[in-house]
């Protein structure tokens, strides 16, 4: 390997580890959620109020992704990766030090922004440094590490919880984020021989120390006769009006002034101002609000029970209005967020459409396979049900690497179409599953093959997008691809749940009354079995829907990604 290739691999490895870690974070809270609810003062019957702990992360992950992608096109990949890691670490610290629901959700949202923002610059980085015909494998590896995160996340969470508290999960996140960021610094474009401004670093650290103390309120200081005064609000009751919090604000103000006046600032405000001029911030905001409203609408629902969140009466109109305004802005702005013609080639927009359907099918597996397991394995816990899903999840990263390697030999359109057809076929088999199906060996094979299909499709879809968009929009278009997949997941689960619930109600309506089945007014085993069968027909309907969605993705991939043979001559 040449030194340049070696540097590219090293950089990509760091970015991939960061992405894997951020992906793990999506799932890490699953185990820690009860403890986090306790810390936020919530009780078990207030589960709905705890939903933002999860949806907050998603919100950050998706809403500002296009903006981050666009920035990475203008400012370069490494500075944006570094910035996202710092943001991720910051969000982790806020979550770890969180003292109520608002601070925890705020921390999770910031974590999501940093974690999601890592993906577009990394995909663009591969396009920058690898020629078209050799991008498959690195794309596959990044996809694999990301999917591996979903397997490792819960295990990592369990390991940390065994020796510490949920706070430690997020302190660990912060430490890893900072460590990777430090390792990335050497890949930054050279800035001459000027040393970083030490006063700026000191001011920023002082702000952090002050505000961290305000959040954690260590009893030793809080109860001190003199030191305690620093924590006492000057007016009102909020701890953010205490002398210590205001001192932190003062240090931050000084830091900002320093950035504006110093010759060698830590953050080059003037350069950022130039960048901001090239970005359609109004368009980015409209898109972010629209996506945010979509997330809140769909993510706060309980997918097994209802389709939409409780506030959908407000959020759906907001999403539609902002989406309309964004389209208007795209047409009228001098430099719109998505530069004109950046997605003009069929495989470019085709890969985004395919990602949407891949996401819609994938979510059915992630939500309804554990649901099926809980329903049919007697006395099964959440954990056992999750273990069934592992059989699916473990095949995803394997498929991702394999797909990356295969894309050197097989055309993108054919590989993606075959992969999604495989997953569709597996869903079709699942739609015939019965009460005892999960105990059979063939169920394991079906689950693994289904995961493998989704994995195989990751690299070729990404490669198709990168091959058919210009270098200077790779960050933005990659972001749109990730957003399409996430939105596909959210809308997919809602649509599939609607179909499933209708099937459940149809089946339940046919069950004979309790009195007839059991001979008395109290419930009996026969009635419970009948209800369980209704539940199974609900999931059969969902799996049928997922199979159709996967076949749609396969067909679209075959037609839309067609002329994207990676081996161009």
């Amino acid at each position, binding site marked *: 390997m040449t030194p340049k290739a070696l540097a590219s691999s090293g950089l990509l490895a760091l970015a991939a580890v960061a992405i894997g870690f951020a992906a793990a974070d999506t799932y890490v809270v699953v185990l820690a959620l*009860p*403890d986090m*609810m*306790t*810390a936020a003062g*919530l*009780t*078990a*019957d*207030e589960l709905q109020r705890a939903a933002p702990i999860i949806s907050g992360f998603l919100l950050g992950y998706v809403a500002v992704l296009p903006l981050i992608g666009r920035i990475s096109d203008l400012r370069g990949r490494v500075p944006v990766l570094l910035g996202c890691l710092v943001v991720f670490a910051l969000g982790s610290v806020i979550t770890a030090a969180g003292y109520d629901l608002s601070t925890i959700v705020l921390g999770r949202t910031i974590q999501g922004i940093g974690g999601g923002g890592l993906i577009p610059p990394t995909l663009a980085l591969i396009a920058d440094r690898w020629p078209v015909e050799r991008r498959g494998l690195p794309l596959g590896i990044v996809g694999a590490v990301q999917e591996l995160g979903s397997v490792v996340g819960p295990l990592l969470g369990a390991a940390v*919880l*065994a020796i510490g*508290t949920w706070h430690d999960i997020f302190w660990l996140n912060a430490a890893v984020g900072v460590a990777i960021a430090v390792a990335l610094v050497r890949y930054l474009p050279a800035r001459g021989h000027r040393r970083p401004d030490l006063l700026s670093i000191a001011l920023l650290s002082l702000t952090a120390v002050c505000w961290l103390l305000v959040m954690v309120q260590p009893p030793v200081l*809080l*109860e*001190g*006769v*003199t030191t*305690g*005064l620093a924590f*006492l609000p000057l007016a009102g009751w909020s701890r953010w009006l205490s002398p210590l919090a205001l001192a932190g604000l003062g240090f931050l103000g000084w830091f900002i002034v320093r950035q504006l006046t110093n010759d060698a600032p830590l953050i080059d405000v003037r350069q950022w101002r130039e960048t901001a001029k090239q970005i359609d911030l109004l368009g980015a905001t409209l898109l972010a609000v629209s996506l945010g409203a979509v997330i809140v609408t769909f993510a706060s629902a309980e997918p097994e029970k209802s389709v939409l969140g409780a506030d959908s009466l407000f959020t759906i109109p907001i999403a539609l209005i902002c989406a309309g305004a964004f389209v208007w802005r795209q047409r009228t702005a001098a430099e719109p967020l998505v530069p004109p013609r950046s997605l003009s080639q069929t495989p470019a927009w085709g890969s985004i459409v395919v990602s949407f359907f891949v996401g819609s099918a994938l979510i059915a597996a992630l939500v309804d396979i554990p649901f099926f397991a809980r329903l049919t394995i007697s006395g099964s816990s959440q954990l056992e049900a999750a273990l069934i899903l592992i059989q699916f999840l473990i095949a995803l990263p394997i498929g991702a690497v394999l797909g990356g390697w295969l894309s050197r030999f097989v055309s993108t359109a054919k590989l993606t179409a075959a992969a999604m057809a495989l997953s569709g076929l597996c869903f079709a088999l699942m739609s015939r599953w019965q009460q005892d199906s999960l105990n059979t060996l063939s169920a394991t094979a079906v689950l693994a093959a289904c995961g493998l299909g989704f994995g195989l499709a990751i690299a070729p879809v990404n490669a198709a997008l990168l091959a058919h968009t210009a270098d200077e929009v790779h960050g933005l278009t990659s972001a749109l691809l990730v957003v399409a997949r996430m939105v596909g997941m959210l809308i997919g689960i809602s649509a599939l749940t609607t179909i499933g619930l209708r099937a459940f109600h149809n089946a339940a309506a046919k069950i004979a009354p309790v009195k007839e089945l059991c001979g008395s007014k109290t419930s009996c085993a026969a009635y419970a079995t009948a209800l369980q069968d209704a539940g199974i027909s609900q999931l059969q309907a969902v799996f049928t829907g997922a199979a159709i969605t996967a076949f749609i993705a396969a067909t679209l991939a075959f037609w839309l990604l067609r002329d994207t043979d990676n081996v161009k001559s």
Partner: protein
Amino acid sequence: MFTSRRVLTAIALAAALTLGACSGGSGGDAEKQLAAAADVLANAEAIDFSISTTALPSGEKGLLSAEGTANHSPAFQGEVKAVAGGITIGAEVIATDGKVWAKTGFSPVFMSLDPERLGAPDPATLVGTKDNPGITGWITSTVEAKVDGKSRDGKDVYTKITGTIPGKEVAALLPSAAADSDFQVVYRLNSDGELHDMKVTGAFYGSDVDDVTYTLKAKPLSDPVAIEAP
């Protein structure tokens, strides 16, 4: 330089005052102060009572917090949060005549329950009667009590007294506590000698589980409070 001299004077004055406060405390004095504070609680018509901790050791079930009013019948009425199976359950609780009723968020009506099965104490026993004291018994049985300077809580500054409560006293009220171990306690008394709060740290859930710190507050109320079974 006038201002800096004034600051120096102020610091010197503050130091002198603080030192003066510290040197006043001897063992006997601290015990007398505690006895007086316990007496106020024992003679109160009703008490504003709370006990809470931030988190229980991983996997333990037990009491997270209880907050409400109590009298020496003994009876208690208020909000209780308990942890079981890793999740927090909140309930409105009424405890009187040795019975406990709870109304959780899941249920519209009060239901009778056995607190021992939840690993939590009958909250009324924590308050106790005049003859069979609850936590006032912990205060009077404290050994090695000594005044340990001042402590701030918000705008107010309190006298701090540290000491040790024998495990058997704690276990008498909370059966899960290790009777053979000592519990560290920090009291804070206000300028009238009344209890502001007490932090008790020790093996509340047995000696093989991590220590837990409970913060208890008991404020005497001048008017009686009637607490009746639902």
